[in-house]
């Protein structure tokens, strides 16, 4: 499997990244190399291997439904580029 420039453009759009032509070329060649590297795995015969859903062989990490203190609002809002001491403020979201 090989990635095309169009694939990379699409992934960039989905990730909200913007590249100029030069950057896109560079990113495409990087990503092709990464995919080719990972593709090496498909050389292995996995016919008798059960698919795994998680890297750890651990199950059922469940927590009891008991509330703990949340962050003070000031702390929660602190990293936001913009807030009004009550809400996060974001550029107007268009559409309904």
């Amino acid at each position, binding site marked *: 499997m090989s990635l095309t420039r169009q694939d990379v453009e699409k992934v960039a759009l989905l990730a909200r990244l913007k590249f100029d032509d030069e950057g896109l070329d560079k990113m495409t060649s990087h990503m092709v190399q990464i995919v080719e590297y990972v593709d090496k795995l498909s050389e292995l015969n996995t016919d008798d291997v059960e698919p795994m859903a998680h*890297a750890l062989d651990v199950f059922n*990490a469940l927590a009891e439904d008991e509330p703990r203190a*949340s962050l003070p609002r000031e702390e929660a809002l602190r990293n936001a580029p913009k807030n009004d001491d*009550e*809400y*996060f403020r974001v*550029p*107007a979201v268009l559409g309904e």
Partner: protein
Amino acid sequence: MSELPYEIVIGLEVHVQLKTNTKLFCRCSTAFGSPPNTQTCPVCLGMPGSLPVMNKKAYFLGMKTALALHCGIPKFTKWDRKNYFYPDLPKGYQTSQFDLPMSEEGYLDIKSTKDEFEPRRVRIIRAHLEEDAGKSIHDEAAGKADSRIDLNRTGTPLLEIVSYPDMRSAAEAKAYMQELRLLLTYLDVSDCNMQEGSLRCDANVNLHITTDDGVIATPIVEIKNMNSFRSVERGINYEAKRQYDVWQETGKVLGELPKQTRGWDDSAQVTRSQREKEESADYRYFPCPDLIPVVVTDEQIDEVRHEIGDLPAALRDRLESEYDLTTYTADVIVNQGLGFVEYYLELAAASGDNKLAGNWVQGEVLRILNDLEIGISDFGVSAAALAELLKLIQAGDLDSSKAKDVFTVMLESGKSAAAVVEDLGIEKVDESALEDLCRLLVERNQRIVDDVKNGNEKAVGALIGQAKKENPNVNPGQVRQICLDIINSL
């Protein structure tokens, strides 16, 4: 119902907020209505390095609901990331379930007591757990000012219940929602408050239209924002008509247009197209590496199964078959909720008269609950107290109109039926005195006797009126029967 030139095909996706104290993957409170952004932590804010941990109760409430919907519970389930950007989704993905949901393949039966549609089994594709997003508050003049974001709701546990496209009318979709809500209420897994968004519904709708060239299907539209049973019904009917008009105009069929999302505007009573980004359908699901899969045993599933009490469908059947109530009465009683059913069962047992108890709860009790806008748990007359009243009716001590008077006073005063009867001066008329009175009336009214003898039984009504004048405490039913007996024996 008038014949439509098309068949509506409807599948519903219902989001149920589960009744937990804390969020799905962190221990922030889920309480509704707190000041904005006071129920967040590094996990639900999506801070790097924070680690989500699954809420045990949310998983088991989800399983309980799935079992009640006759779903199978896979032994292994895992969590996936659904990737998209939106300001009320701080992590940039929603933690949901993709290919291995916690439950699959169930059903919910719906029926109409008003004959709006044939009974139908709506199959369920799956019910899976996922987290809710936050709340965006947009400025009225869109585009002018910032949007405000409250992340208190972010991470609240939802069970998404997805049906097959098995419904064929808006009335069926509404009935499905109502029956589902009733079931969830009986299971006590959600408060089902539609105003607070605890129960939300999206509908996938299209039409099958019979043409000269066979049946065609119109493109599927997903309707969002239907926040009441009424808007579910109206939104779907509006959308069906709109699709038919568009098809007549453009001739576009399924596959020729992408799936569209439209929002129901309740004030304007129309659906409106929602802005769709071209790439929005590409969610790039992948397993969430931060969350550990869940494995359950048969024993655990059985344990949850045993926690499930009586459910609406089974109770309706039981009230009909064991308590000999009509389909309609059984439906009315069950639809009021488990507390009301328990009230009825207690009343039926204490009074020993299932039918009379059914008539009273469905009539007088329900009328008063509706008048006062209260639930059965706040009702002032206990089932035991009402049973005493019903016993007086059965014994012939009270006729139904007097019994209603007594009931009203019981409700106001909190006194027992016997005490109220005494207060009101209602006395049971001695049997022999009653018979003497009837005999006297029959002797005095030869014409009525002749009328009755000639087959007009109704004529005896005039004697009841006279009897009441003589003694206001007489029981009209008894007077009628005794008079008829006397006349017939003449």
